[in-house]
């Protein structure tokens, strides 16, 4: 069996979950296994409704008051129980914050490898080869399971699978799962999620964004960037380290922990293009990078790769633009 775990994201199915279903459908076919989709805990009704439109052999619905709100305690215990019962060959989820938060615990409880953060998979003869970014997206590595190991937990990064390739249909069976959770299993309580609003700008609707990365080095170089964006009529965005250093406010953060944007042009300046950044801007119509490193990952997704020093190029652009 291939088990796909769906995730709720603020009342809707998580977009990574749809991609995980595509992964599940592909794995089920390759391994000639049954496909089982699991709706777990939070907001099961919504997940169930979604899942009823995907082709699968079995739809499992696992509800319990102790997992009606996500906690890593409750979810890891519940999923572990289900894996123990169903013994799936692969358990698959999107590589979301929640997956990162509780799947390692399931890996310990069931003594299964958790092969996470995967960007692709290939099936070669007898072997299944997984692929993941390392060294902050500078390199990729293949990962293989020891031949003696048959089962694993997997999580895939966004875009590892195309969510439009989902095979529509319906589950052959819908089964309610009985869970044996005790109050003492859950040692964590959660408050409501909230948004810290310090927003002076709405990047999600901007049509030209110039984002600065760590290459900007210090706050002292921001005026140079501000002058440039003013000249070209763009909004300033930023990568995570620049926000962490306190150089730019969080409202300017593009990435999985910030905003998702899709302008006509995304110009990444001194920014490497790690996956957590790229997931949130790769939908831009055109992408340009300015980077001293010819092998910077940002160039992989760029339409225009400007190889050069931002401290030379940006002032020169500003000068030319204000002269004309």
């Amino acid at each position, binding site marked *: 069996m291939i088990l796909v775990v769906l995730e709720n994201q*603020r009342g809707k199915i998580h977009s990574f979950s749809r991609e995980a279903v595509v992964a599940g459908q592909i794995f089920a076919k390759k391994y000639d296994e049954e496909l089982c989709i699991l709706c777990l805990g939070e907001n099961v009704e919504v997940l169930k409704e979604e899942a009823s439109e995907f082709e699968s052999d079995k739809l499992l619905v696992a509800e319990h008051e102790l997992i009606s709100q996500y*906690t*890593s*305690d409750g979810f890891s215990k519940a999923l572990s129980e289900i894996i123990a019962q169903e013994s799936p060959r692969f358990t698959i989820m999107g590589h*979301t*914050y929640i997956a*990162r*938060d509780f799947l*390692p*615990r399931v*890996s*310990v409880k069931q003594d299964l*490898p958790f092969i996470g*953060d995967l960007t692709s998979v290939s099936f070669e003869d007898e072997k299944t080869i997984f692929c*993941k*970014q*390392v*060294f902050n997206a*500078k*390199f*990729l*590595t*293949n*990962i*293989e*399971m*020891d031949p003696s*190991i048959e089962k*694993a937990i997997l999580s895939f990064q966004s875009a590892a699978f195309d969510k439009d390739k989902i095979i529509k249909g319906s589950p052959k069976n819908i089964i309610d799962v009985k869970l044996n959770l005790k109050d003492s299993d859950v*040692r*964590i*309580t*959660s*408050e*409501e*999620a909230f*948004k810290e609003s310090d927003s002076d700008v709405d990047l999600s609707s901007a*049509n*030209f964004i110039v984002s600065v990365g760590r290459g900007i080095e210090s706050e002292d170089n921001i005026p140079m960037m501000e002058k440039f964006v003013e000249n*070209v009529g763009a909004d300033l965005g930023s990568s*995570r380290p620049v926000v962490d250093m*306190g150089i730019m406010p969080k409202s300017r*953060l593009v990435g999985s*922990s910030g*905003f998702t944007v899709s302008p*006509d042009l995304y110009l990444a300046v001194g920014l490497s293009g790690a996956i957590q950044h790229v997931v949130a801007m790769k939908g831009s119509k055109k992408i340009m990078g300015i980077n001293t490193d*010819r092998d910077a*990952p940002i160039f*992989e*997704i*760029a*339409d*225009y*790769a*400007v*190889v*050069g020093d931002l401290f030379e*190029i940006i002032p020169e*652009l500003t000068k030319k*633009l204000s002269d004309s």
Partner: protein
Amino acid sequence: MKIAVLTKAIPKVDSLKINSSETWIDDSNVKFVMNEHDTYALEEALLIKEELDNNSEVVAITMGAQKSSNQIISEALAKGADRGIIIENDTKITDPLVFAKIFSEQIREEKFDLIFCGLASYDLGSGQTSVLIGEILGMTTATFAIGTKIESSHIKVKKELESGYSQWIRMSLPASISIQSGLNNPRYPSLKGIMSAKSKEVKVKTIDSNFSEMQGFTKFFVPKNEKQTEYIEGDVEDVSNKIIDILKNELKLIA
């Protein structure tokens, strides 16, 4: 409060190359630094200790090769950690669960109230270690901490969620927590700190390197470019003219 900060020496990345066996980077001549996320974890632990101001203790722990381990543990001690533990290991472990099992057994007897890790390491980037160790040692776990508050036998953790949301959770101690970057301002070691570090205890442990991995890295490679990318290089003058031409004529973003 007895707090462990788990930290890792990371090759300082500038122009990294893949090694000849294509299984890792060529780290024969690189410098090592403390994993950046860990500097925030250490700072958070030191802040908690300072705030509690009782018999709290911060212990910096690493597993890795002797030289780089010594270097980052000395750095942690200079910044204010009370003592250090080095679990010496020269074998590359790329299975997070194996790594966590070995680590957990080496620190189990310490009975920490809190374990802090950086959110992820810069090299492997699995982001699993703190959660795995927490589970193995029967602790509560949380990831993406962007704030902490001790409440006697509990800790409140402000977690970063996706798309700009945050959430407070409250969990019982002992707890193992991974720390997101940016939640504090990691300090620099003071001269006094550097001097006093020399007299602090560093325990060195060795492990049995006979373990089998369930998963492992098999081949490193450079990502392929799948898009039609136009490379623009040359002197600044030409490059700038070309960029302006694109903005103006191709994309019509400026007049």
